[in-house]
């Protein structure tokens, strides 16, 4: 029992350390400009000051941005689930020439710095006429080496015999994929989905580059707009961060269990 107490204590302390920055951001977002500049820092705002939130919403059309971010992130998530599960399936179950080479090529895409290919990509998107559109924001990210890798690892843990059994039962490859692999891999797919969503939601450079109107902008650019105001006080910026982070925080809390399960199941033998 004493051991548990110690463990709880450590957990609580570590938890607080990890949460502290964001908690503080929440506090500051409710402080008046004066409080945010005070030294020593104010940890309990004298009064709840919500003007920063109004200001944040006024400075950037955050609601539109959030909707955009959701549309884009969801499309990317769905796209990645489709492409990655297909590719992962091929790498895990099928035999074809150059499989190993192709797999290494897939993995190597993880290593290409995004900044170094952003300009050619911009031209590709422009020549497709996809500037300032959801397609332009989403399509380039619909394939992911990480996702493919993750799903392949998971698929490999599915008992090989199931594949054999299904083939004998008369199941084609595609049908096996749809009726067996996908339902059996829900945790891993959920993991990929959460991960894909979070990363897309947090993109900055790309949306900035290819969008031209507020109607297409995503939340991270909203943050950049708010950053201008930090000149004198933190509260508006922090309010913006809190608003923008809210959807992902909720998603994480909802998806965390799946996330652990998905990654865990990936290494436990079915």
């Amino acid at each position, binding site marked *: 029992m004493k051991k548990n107490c110690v463990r709880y204590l450590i957990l609580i302390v570590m938890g607080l350390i990890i949460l502290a920055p964001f908690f503080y951001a929440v506090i500051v977002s409710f402080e008046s*400009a*004066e409080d945010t*500049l*005070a*030294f020593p820092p104010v940890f309990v705002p004298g009064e709840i000051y919500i003007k920063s939130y109004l200001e944040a919403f*006024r*400075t*950037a059309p955050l609601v539109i941005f959030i909707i955009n971010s959701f*549309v884009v992130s969801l*499309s990317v998530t*769905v796209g990645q689930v489709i492409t990655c599960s297909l590719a992962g399936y091929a790498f895990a179950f099928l035999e074809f020439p150059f499989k190993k080479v192709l797999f290494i090529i897939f993995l190597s895409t993880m290593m290409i710095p995004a900044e170094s290919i952003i*300009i050619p990509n*911009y*031209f590709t998107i*422009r020549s497709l006429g996809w*500037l300032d*559109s*959801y*397609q332009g924001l989403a399509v380039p990210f619909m394939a992911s080496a990480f996702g493919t890798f993750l799903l392949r690892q998971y698929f490999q843990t599915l008992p090989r015999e199931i594949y054999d059994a299904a083939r004998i039962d008369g199941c*084609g490859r*595609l*049908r096996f994929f*749809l009726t067996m692999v996908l339902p059996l891999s829900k945790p891993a797919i959920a993991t990929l989905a959460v991960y894909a969503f979070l990363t897309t939601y947090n993109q900055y450079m790309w949306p*900035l*580059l290819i969008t*031209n*109107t*507020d*109607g*297409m*902008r995503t939340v991270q*650019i909203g943050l*950049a*707009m*708010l*950053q*201008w*105001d*930090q*000149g*004198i*006080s933190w509260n*508006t910026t922090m309010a913006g961060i809190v608003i923008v982070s809210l959807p992902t925080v909720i998603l994480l809390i909802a998806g965390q269990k799946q996330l652990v399960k998905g990654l865990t199941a990936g290494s436990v033998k079915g």
Partner: protein
Amino acid sequence: MQKKSLWKRIAGLLLLGVMVMSITGCGDSSNEAGKGKEPTKIVFWYAVGGKVGEATKTLVKEFNDMHPDIKVEAVFQGDYDSAINKLKQSIASKSTPNVMQVYDIGTRFMIDSKAVVPVQKWIDKENFDTSSYEKNILAYYTVDNKLYSMPFNTSTPLLYYNKDMFKAAGLDPDNPPKTFEEVAADAQKLTQRDSSGKVTRPGMAMAIYGWFFEQFLAEQNAQYANNGNGRDAMATAVSFNSPQGEKVLNWWADMVKNGSAVNMGRKTEDTMKAFVSGQTAMTIDSTGVLGDIMDGVNGKFEVGTGFMPHPEGSANGGVIIGGASLWMLSGHSDAEEKASWEFIKFMTAPKQQAFWHIKTGYFPVTTAAYDDDELKKYDAKYPQFKIAIEQLHNTPINRSTQGGLLGVFTQARQEIENAIEHVLAGQASSQDALQKAADTVNDAVARYNSSVEK
């Protein structure tokens, strides 16, 4: 058989996906439909967010309301750097905006990009009277006797000081230091130390900002680059590695060394916060943040402003204006160009500039704005701003105060900041650091010039 039906289902799904995408994707284009007496649509890229962005949007809206035949679509493009990068992409893909806000040091690049229409073209065409515009401000954006872009948001640096602390230190709160030497002496007096001699409150906090260095050069009537600061001909080398440049760095480093000034890094926000929260007595910052500082201080102490200091004995110097101007991009129809010009005129007209000044703290670019009643009220409220105007008007127009033109100014500024950091950290002498920076920048200048000539 079975396989086929499955395929059909998949194809159906995919089709559905595409449809959903195209529907959502096209959602916004619907309001563009319907031709006929459509207003001329022009695109305006701006690069200021927050409160300044708000004011910009308000002005654009006002313009659209007043000009039913023109529709300006204002698009925020991130900060100045992001915006100019975006412009580079759009030039290469021939999808430039009609009007764009570009920062001061992007001037050379804009000209060299060959993608702009000098506003001079329309000034000449309409015989537009620019006499009411601030001479010093126009001077910056005038290259080869052509006004390339219309100044829009303009600022200069100021010395901000805490009058209460001045009083407490036995200094005259109405007589801020004017020279490097005075600043150093006053900073020393304003610095508080604890019993062990550790500094608890430095007298001065100055961000490592290349712009300040440029100002200090201009204050000494020294040029940043050769060929008349790059204004007589394309600059082929920088000239900031001069005795004047060293003087600036030495003065700065000495103060940091003896503890009377603090190095808080490159961000002016940090020094401003230190000043506002009473952790330093003096700072240098843009006129553009005067409003913010007054709001932040909120009467806790009295804020004083003073001219940018200069070394004793230097003459004929002054401040260089900073900020951004409005550029017209080429490759658009005459109607659009005309509309753009109307928009630019509107944005820099006295009434709008007065509003702009009140909302943002930037200078009105036109002296006519000072007749505005609202502005008068505002300046009465913030007498500190008068100093800024005085400083501007006291500045003689010469090659030094016009500011340097350099295609690689961003890089140069960064190299300077790097050099300052080295000197303040005591890792290099002023001379060596500046020389090294100059060498790097000169290489870049050579490369830039060669890529422009082609």
